């Protein structure tokens, strides 16, 4: 991406990034929060513990607001795929439109049951019936992430067709969906969505606790979210590692650019951070982990890792993705460590899990986890450049030829600012006017 003109293609990139960058926050929470709600309600029923049930109820209320914004921004990107990238959709649509359709299907499945879930809290004789309705919500939200990730995987690792004189033939939609990138992409997206949702909910809980609210309600919320977060953090890290190995085998130039690995070599070192000298391609002030790149790429410290020397110059993605990759992994490690310490502290009564500094770190973890999601996605998308469809179609050739993208960018920017602000305002108001304390009193009274 060496030319920075604001042509239609560049503007299309910017608008797509804007929409996706905003949408992904709500989509990520949309995938993970239902699982936590379901867990909370389940525990509440099994242990006959009204605190957990209240947790599920309150989380569900806030969730609805984020789903609304997720739906409208999701509709936006769904249409913008065709509005901004008509050439891409004309081509790729022939192969990968099935999972695009299925994503909506899964989301709809989730939405129907979410509606029923929200409006039937006290309508069943046995509470377990209500909990059963949460299951299709979780399945729907997870599946929609799965399907949409297969589309992104396809863009990175296209297969399931033959290209004969610029025409697609012998199309196999299922092979296209289940391409080499799919397992790691789907796994990592889903797992990191679960992780981020758990951490965000934990952060909100910790925030309340720092303000002095220490009732059992908050303690249980923290325990649930941080414990779940620990499991998801490990899962995310493991699948992240597999993703690195996938990249090494199928998209080595993406990995090489991310790691600033210029020369193909064995015993490749991993460099964290640092500054790149444009002329000499030397990295200054980076933290060097010897042989670690070989281990990440192939599981063997002596393995050979392909460098950028093997990549044609016009196919090298922007090198700033190095910082995005390091940022994402760094935050991931932080989250894993934080949740790990929490779980340990729970076991060993010596350590106070409500220590002020610890709670502050948890609060910080909330926005950091969302930042990691952004870093990860931007890394993945920019790292795929100059391709919109790996090795087949360049992003520049896929963009619309219509005028007006610049104006649309301004309009959508304004829209997202308004939506984001309103979302936060509404959520704050919703919970301020009806703090958990009110409902907790009810519970205490009933006991």
């Amino acid at each position, binding site marked *: 991406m060496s030319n920075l003109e604001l042509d239609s293609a560049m503007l299309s990139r910017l608008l797509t990034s804007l929409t996706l960058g905003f949408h992904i926050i709500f989509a990520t929470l949309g995938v993970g929060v239902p699982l936590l709600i379901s867990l909370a309600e389940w525990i509440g029923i099994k242990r006959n513990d009204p605190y957990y049930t209240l947790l599920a109820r309150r989380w569900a209320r806030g969730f*609805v*607001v984020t*789903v*609304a*914004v997720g*739906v*409208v*921004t999701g*509709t*936006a990107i*769904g*249409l*913008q*795929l*065709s*509005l901004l990238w*008509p050439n891409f*959709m*004309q081509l790729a*649509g*022939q*192969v990968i*439109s*099935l999972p*695009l*359709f299925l994503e*909506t*299907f899964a*989301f*709809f*499945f989730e*939405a*129907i049951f979410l*509606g*029923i879930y929200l*409006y*039937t809290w006290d*309508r069943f004789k046995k509470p377990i019936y209500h909990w059963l309705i949460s299951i299709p919500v979780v399945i729907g939200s997870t599946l929609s992430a799965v399907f949409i990730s297969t589309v992104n995987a396809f863009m990175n690792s296209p297969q399931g067709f033959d290209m004969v004189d610029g025409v697609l*033939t012998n*199309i*196999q*939609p*299922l092979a296209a969906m289940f391409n080499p990138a799919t397992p790691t992409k789907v796994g990592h997206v889903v797992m990191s969505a679960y992780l981020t949702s758990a951490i965000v909910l934990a952060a909100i809980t910790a925030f309340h606790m720092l303000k002095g609210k220490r009732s059992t309600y908050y303690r249980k919320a923290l325990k649930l979210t941080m414990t779940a977060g620990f499991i998801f953090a490990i899962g995310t890290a493991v699948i992240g590692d597999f993703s690195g190995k996938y990249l090494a085998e199928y998209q080595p130039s993406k990995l090489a650019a991310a790691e600033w690995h210029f020369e193909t070599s064995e015993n490749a070192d991993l460099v964290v951070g640092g500054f790149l000298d444009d002329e000499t391609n030397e990295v200054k002030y980076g933290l060097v982990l010897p042989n670690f790149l070989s281990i990440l790429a192939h599981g063997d410290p002596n393995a050979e890792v392909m460098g950028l020397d093997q990549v044609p110059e016009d196919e090298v993605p922007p090198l700033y993705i190095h910082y995005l990759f390091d940022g994402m992994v760094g935050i991931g490690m932080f989250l894993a460590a934080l949740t790990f310490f929490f779980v340990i502290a729970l076991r060993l009564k010596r350590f106070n899990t409500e220590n002020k500094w610890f709670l502050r770190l948890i609060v910080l973890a909330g926005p950091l986890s969302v930042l990691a999601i952004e870093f990860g996605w931007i890394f993945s998308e920019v790292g795929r450049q100059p391709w919109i469809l790996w090795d087949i179609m360049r992003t520049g050739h896929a963009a*619309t*030829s*219509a005028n*007006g993208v610049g*104006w*649309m960018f301004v*309009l*959508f920017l304004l*829209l997202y600012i308004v*939506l984001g602000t*309103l*979302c936060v*305002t*509404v959520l704050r*108001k*919703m919970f301020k*006017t009806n703090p958990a304390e009110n409902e907790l009193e009810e519970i205490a009274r009933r006991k």
Partner: protein
Amino acid sequence: MDIQLLGITVLWVFLYGYLITASIDFGAGFFAYYGELTGRDHIINKIISRYLSPVWEVTNVFFVFFFVGLVGFFPDTAYYYGTALLVPGSIAIILLAIRGSFYAFGNYGAKKSRVYTFLYGVTGLLIPASLSTALTLSEGGFIEEVNGEVKFLAGELFSSFYSWSVVLLAIVSVLFISAAFLTYYASRAKDEPALELLRKYALFWSAPTILSSILVFVALQQHNSVHFERTLDYAWFFIASLFCFLIATYLIFQRKRYGTAFIFVMLQFFFAFFGYGISHLPWILYDHITIYSGYTNETTGVYLVIAFIAGLCLLVPSLVLLMRLFLFDAEYVKGNKS
């Protein structure tokens, strides 16, 4: 029936579903705002907010199913319509976004501000107007392909009599469909003041609906005489539509059987919409794409049709279930259960 025809038919069913459910939603928003302006809001707004809460997201899915399915089944539509609809499409998205989230914020966020009801009401009319441009474009004459680049002739669209007649029809239909449904809903809720008011609205918008339909035919003959000739071949669709309209209006006028009346309104639009669609064939975009030229490959096509039909099988019962749980649950309707 070949697969292309099957595919476009299912997609058309999605669009019809969107037409009905969204019209109810859009019109209701407008009536709510109008009610606030004329000081009658306490009468109808209660009814309106009860209906809208569980169903609005479902409405959106009909729309998304349609355009995702259209692009998947006929990928060339992405190329032509995608390019041409950049501005009108983006504006429609923004309006939908404003409406969708303001709705959620307003109802779940407690505060009912004037700004919100204004936007909610106004988008209810602007969205059908902007979305109708897609159908207008399909008649041809507004898109040009020059040197492999697609050009959208905006000037032509804005100065076209046909284009404006379609916008008028869209707006008027939304108000009529919505009023007819809400009349029925008010009668179920036994809310007499609301019923009286909404019945008046329904009758008020009935005549303009038919008149603007006639206007559209006149304009179509001028704009795309080929399509117009074909509508004459399928005249019985439109006659059936008129017939249903007359029955529906008669029932509402006689204060009888509002539910049946609404069914006939649905049928009125069913016949008109499918009559329009079938006479439009084989063109998806006049003079550029037919359902045969723009069709994806066989394998993807088959998978998609299976997915579409499965989608329909999920969508329709879900809608019925939601209707049962909320709309037709007597206690919920009368406001006794939340």
